[in-house]
């Protein structure tokens, strides 16, 4: 890993949010995380309060532990599994580029992998899904400030031949910790009926609800 590059990327991460999100999502007490990282509980508390910044070593450890703890398994095989997945799952980077599309995505859009992977969201979609991406971005999702978000809206998929497919989608959005300390968007969802969409919209009170990490 190039030191210069990782240094640049680190500037964008909001560490108090990332540490707190990581800890709570793994169900750890401050003392337990402190133990794992070999620091004091007070130090964790100070990192989360923004009173101190974790060292480069600790930052790397946290991004590694995201994968080694819990049920995701190693990062490489996780990516392959996600591609196999029957339900709708996507991994999108901060530029809006689709890194991974599950089999469920390909099926529900009736496309081949190369028609969605490595393409920009803004080239593929219009309407609510673009607004979801823009909102996540402006709320600091890619800096780690958001622990989860739920959305419901019209998905407008722009096919290569110019036709637009429209359907209702219900989505759940979480951050995922990638190499070089980048945070990507893990989007999972389902196509739903209009009635179901209206019910979810009423529950959410709008297009989306965002849960901040802090």
């Amino acid at each position, binding site marked *: 890993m190039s030191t210069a590059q990782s240094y640049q990327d680190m500037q964008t991460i909001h560490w108090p949010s990332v540490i*707190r999100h990581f*800890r*709570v*999502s*793994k*169900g750890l*007490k*401050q*003392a337990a995380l402190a133990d794992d*990282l*070999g*620091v*004091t*509980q*007070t*130090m964790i*508390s*100070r990192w*989360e*309060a*923004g*009173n*101190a*910044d*974790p*060292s480069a*070593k*600790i930052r790397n450890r946290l991004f590694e532990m995201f994968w080694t703890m*819990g*049920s995701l398994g190693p990062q490489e095989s996780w990516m392959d*599994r996600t591609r*196999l*997945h*029957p*339900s*709708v*799952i996507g991994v999108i980077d901060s530029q809006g580029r689709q890194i991974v599309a599950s*089999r*469920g995505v390909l*099926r529900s859009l009736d496309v081949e992998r190369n028609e969605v992977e490595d393409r920009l969201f803004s080239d593929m979609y219009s309407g609510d899904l673009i607004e979801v991406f823009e909102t996540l971005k402006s709320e600091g999702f890619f800096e780690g400030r958001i622990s*989860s978000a*739920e959305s419901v809206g019209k998905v407008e998929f722009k096919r290569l031949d110019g036709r637009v497919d429209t359907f209702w*989608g*219900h*989505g*759940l959005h*979480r951050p995922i910790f990638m190499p070089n300390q980048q945070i990507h968007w893990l989007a*999972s*969802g*389902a196509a*739903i009926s209009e009635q*179901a969409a209206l019910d979810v919209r009423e529950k959410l009170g709008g297009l989306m609800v965002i849960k901040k990490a*802090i």
Partner: protein
Amino acid sequence: MAAHEDDGSDSGTVHWASILRQHRLSQNMKQSALAYDLGVTQAMVSRWESGKAEPAAAMQKRIEEMLDEADMGSPMVAWREIASQQPAMVAVIDENGKGELVSTGVLRELNMDRSELQGTAISELFDGDMVSLFEGLKSSGFFEGKVDMVESADYIQYRKRDGSMVKFHAHGLHWPHLDEDGKIRWVASGARVSEDEFLSMRQELGGQMRIMLAE
């Protein structure tokens, strides 16, 4: 701006003022409520938060314990919460075939209430492929940690309370989750597919399921 600290050294001053204030605001508490919890006066909390006084050593320990309690989501709650919130079909099933939780997506596909599905055994709810899937997992040592992942193509037949059957084709992906109690749970996820897609999955998998054993 936060000070840069090395991870090993913890010799810097602890900013009790901001730690306390941050905790109190995050819990939506008044100073008087925090004072009550800690067994001190509200004036004392106010002095700590303004930095005019520092909590004594014993009180610092007490505050750390309080922070730790408050910051705790109960173990694995986050994981289960996310699973049950999923718009797609996800279920967590125990080694006895009992459904522990089902996602919003499952409720939608089966058109059922959560209470009708959670806590009920698969064999009571399903006929056919779901039952043989569970048996297949069980006999391959899934609940003993011998399996890494399973992919399946299933014809779901679900028996509703009024005796009628809901039937559809599905493509499933299943993996073990080692839970807090040291036992393995079956995380089942999937999606409804067309009959054609189901048939081509059956061909691809060489049967109802393909079991990938753990190394």
